[in-house]
């Protein structure tokens, strides 16, 4: 049995609108529908409406949105749990390109800055890089990040200083490589994060952990980086 549901969607087209506005839509929904399905239905009715999406199952990280005030992925948010009218806005703090599409450059810049790849100074091994199962376990809860930006864009420190503070997503990845037994750049990685901004703008308010659609814990990773830094310098 189908029923209707009300949505209030952030709209902004810089070519035609002088400022953003909220547009109301009422659509027919069915049981088990995710927010992404509802947005696709809205787009079918009003093709001027734009949003990013791809895999539809919480793997690609394209449809990070602000849903009723909380960041999350539209494709794994069941509409049944949402209060009406469902307010859908772009991820906060990033420049809006159009409607729900934001410019992620600042976010990617911070991600690139932490050098998200293994650095090895030893000669390359003949076959493969070896890692014990115990060392591999240390990467659990870190490598699963899909870079949807839900965490960084819910972090006030990232809102105020997106150009200087790395943000929870990039810091989680920084720790992913610091914790990796195969990586040989720990000292450089720690040194790169030193100073008042890059790491230490985090005040552990845990907004990032609250919203992570993959259930990861950037605050804990940031705490681990601080601990390792402390051991390294003392």
């Amino acid at each position, binding site marked *: 049995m189908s029923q209707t549901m009300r949505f209030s969607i952030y709209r902004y087209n810089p070519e035609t609108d002088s400022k953003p506005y909220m547009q109301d839509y009422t659509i027919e929904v069915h049981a088990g529908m995710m927010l992404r399905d509802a947005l696709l239905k809205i787009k079918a009715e009003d093709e001027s409406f734009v949003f990013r999406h791809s895999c539809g199952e919480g793997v690609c990280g394209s449809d990070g949105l602000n849903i009723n005030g909380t960041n999350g992925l539209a494709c794994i948010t069941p509409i049944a749990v949402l209060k009406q009218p469902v307010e859908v806005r772009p991820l906060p703090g990033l420049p809006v390109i159009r409607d729900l599409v934001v410019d992620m450059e600042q976010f990617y810049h911070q991600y690139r800055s932490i050098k998200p790849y293994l650095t090895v100074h030893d000669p390359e091994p003949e076959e493969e890089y070896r890692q014990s199962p115990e060392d591999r376990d240390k990467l659990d809860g870190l490598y699963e990040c899909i870079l949807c930006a839900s965490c960084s864009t819910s972090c*006030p*420190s990232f809102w*105020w*200083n997106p150009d200087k503070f790395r943000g929870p997503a990039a810091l989680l990845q920084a720790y992913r490589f610091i914790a990796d037994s195969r990586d040989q750049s720990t000292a450089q990685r720690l040194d790169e*994060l*030193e*100073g*008042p*901004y*890059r*790491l*230490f*703008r985090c*005040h552990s308010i845990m907004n990032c952990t609250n919203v992570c659609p993959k259930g990861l814990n950037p605050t804990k990773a940031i705490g681990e980086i*601080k601990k390792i*830094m*402390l051991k390294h*310098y003392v």
Partner: protein
Amino acid sequence: MSWRAASGLHAWLAQRISAIYMAVFLFYFLGVLAFCQPNTFQAWSDWFASTPMQLATAGFFIALFWHAWVGVRDVLIDYIKPFAVRMGLLVSLAITMILLALWVVKVFLAGAL
């Protein structure tokens, strides 16, 4: 020590160490107030006259100033972008804290005499 470490890891560490010290001191201070009840002027001044208590109290104020400096500086770094405004506020904060510290020293000296 580089300025980067001083304004990053060291500031963060200073805030935690000073917080722990103040928590322990306040726990002791309130414990004495609750259980020993130094109700008279004599009892109160005897309590503060001992050297360990004076050192502990001096330590408390050092921790307090250290903690307050890092904390307020953090808020200014977070929210105040224009360099001139931020420096102006940091300098006025420093002056205020130096004046307060001098006042604390004056109280200490008055107690010691």
